[in-house]
């Protein structure tokens, strides 16, 4: 039986592989290898689903080739679990997962040979429940859960919302640092860096807080991956320079 710890271990393992590839450590067909070498295939597939769009980051950010075997592996992970309901009656958590799947499917459709399963490629409705940032505390926590979407080359309703929400995001960063919730802070700084990369004026300089949460944010592979993506966003050239 697959336990919660098995899922966490598999996610860390994949995050480390992605991180290694992002840093230029070889890594051809890293997703396929992750699944083939896993002691627990279900957990390995779930890890792909969790990291989602970030499994493409070595390709998107560092220009490493995206292997056909990886496309097949990502497609398999989307098939392995049902896409959650995303209609008006769906719970926020279900919508969050649906948006992450949407992001994965977008990139798979672009870089995979056979595209993505149609169910995941549909946008999970308008981002209506994300458009209202009045409750910036709860809203920013949800945006932190959607941090894999803060990736060059992805654009959609969630990104449109983010572009109009630099202040709620900056407040979310400030709040999570002061609450010492560093994993959330790391993910929200990633959004801020994404906004900066898009040329949006920011109420908060992302570079010092990025370094601060790097020093305090703990050493989990997923956090390290978020930090690495943020590094790229803060230092990358303007968006047109990113190969898509």
């Amino acid at each position, binding site marked *: 039986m697959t336990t919660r710890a098995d899922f966490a271990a598999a996610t860390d393992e994949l995050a480390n592989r992605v991180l290694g590839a992002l840093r230029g450590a070889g890594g051809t067909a890293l997703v396929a290898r992750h699944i083939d070498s896993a002691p627990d295939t279900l957990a390995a597939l779930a890890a792909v689903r969790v990291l989602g769009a970030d499994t493409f980051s070595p390709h998107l950010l560092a220009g490493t080739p995206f292997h056909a075997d990886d496309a097949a592996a990502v497609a398999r992970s989307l098939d392995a679990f049902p896409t959650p309901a995303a209609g008006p009656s769906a719970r926020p958590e279900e919508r969050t997962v649906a948006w992450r799947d949407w992001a994965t499917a977008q990139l798979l459709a672009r870089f995979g040979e056979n595209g993505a399963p149609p169910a995941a490629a549909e946008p999970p409705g308008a981002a209506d429940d994300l458009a209202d940032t009045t409750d910036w505390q709860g809203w920013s926590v949800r945006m932190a859960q959607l941090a894999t979407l803060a990736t060059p080359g992805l654009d959609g309703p969630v990104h449109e919302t983010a572009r109009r929400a630099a202040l709620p995001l900056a*407040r979310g960063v400030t709040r999570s640092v*002061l609450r010492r919730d560093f994993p959330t802070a790391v993910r929200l700084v990633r959004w801020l860096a994404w906004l900066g990369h898009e040329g949006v004026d920011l109420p908060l300089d992302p570079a010092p807080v990025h370094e*601060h949460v790097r020093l305090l944010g703990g050493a989990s592979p997923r956090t390290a991956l978020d930090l690495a993506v943020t590094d790229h966003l803060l230092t990358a050239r303007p968006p047109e320079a990113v190969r898509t």
Partner: protein
Amino acid sequence: MTVPEPVAAAARSMADRALSWLHANRALGALPPGTTEELADPDSVYKPLGETTLAASLLLRDGVAGPGQLAAAQSLMDFTWDQFRQGDMLYERQLRHTLMTDPLEVYAPFVRCGYRHADLDRLLAHRARLRSVDGVELLPNRRLAAANAARVVGLDREPGGGPDWDALARATWLGARPEPWAINWITAYAMTHTVFHLTDWGRLPHGMPPDLTAYVRTWLPVWIDIWREVQQWDLVVELLIVGASLDEPYCRPEDWEAVAALQHEDGLVPRDGDPVDDDPRERFTDHQHTVVVTAVAGSVALARAAGR
């Protein structure tokens, strides 16, 4: 945006009950018999008496409390003025300690309400002309406290004019518009006092440079949120005063109603989330400051709601 009606309602309740508590418990804040200008521990009774005076003076200044509350505020002022021997004690302390700012700061709220001590006025005018006084190395937010007290007393109308408020503001933590995520508890208190003194407790909403006002408006919601979460009520109430003192007030009904709901029937507002002691003296010592700032918050918000 002005002050929303639910905030005004909460503010009235907060100010009225806080003032009632301060008045009812005033004897617990009396100086020990035989107290002279030499204070072994100025923070124990002397400073709280000054804080009570401040709260009462702002209620009288703003004039937005009911007639009964205004009478209680006047009675409190009379009480604290008597405690300081109608100003003699402040005079003796300032005479003995030229460079100290606390006699001036304690005196200022009395002057606001028409209480004067002729010898102290003359001494303060003399003192204000000394380069030595100006050169004392105070923390920037403390320097603002002394500058605002001098302004209230009227010392800034001396030849040579008042201080360079912008330069004083720039020297503080707030003046640097620092990373808002690197604030801590004690720095938050320093920040609130920078705002209090620049705006003279809400009387001069334009007293803050516009960029600092914009900075505070941007981050105040976060600071109120995180210190509400850890139940640092004393600091939360100070942050509410900050919001009510801004050029365009930031007063969120939910924050004000949360504090109003915390207030005990007798007017006490707990300083934090710890249990409140039953002993009257302990209660006074522990929570007097929070009740003072609650009275101030209520008065400032009501004054802003009334367009003053």
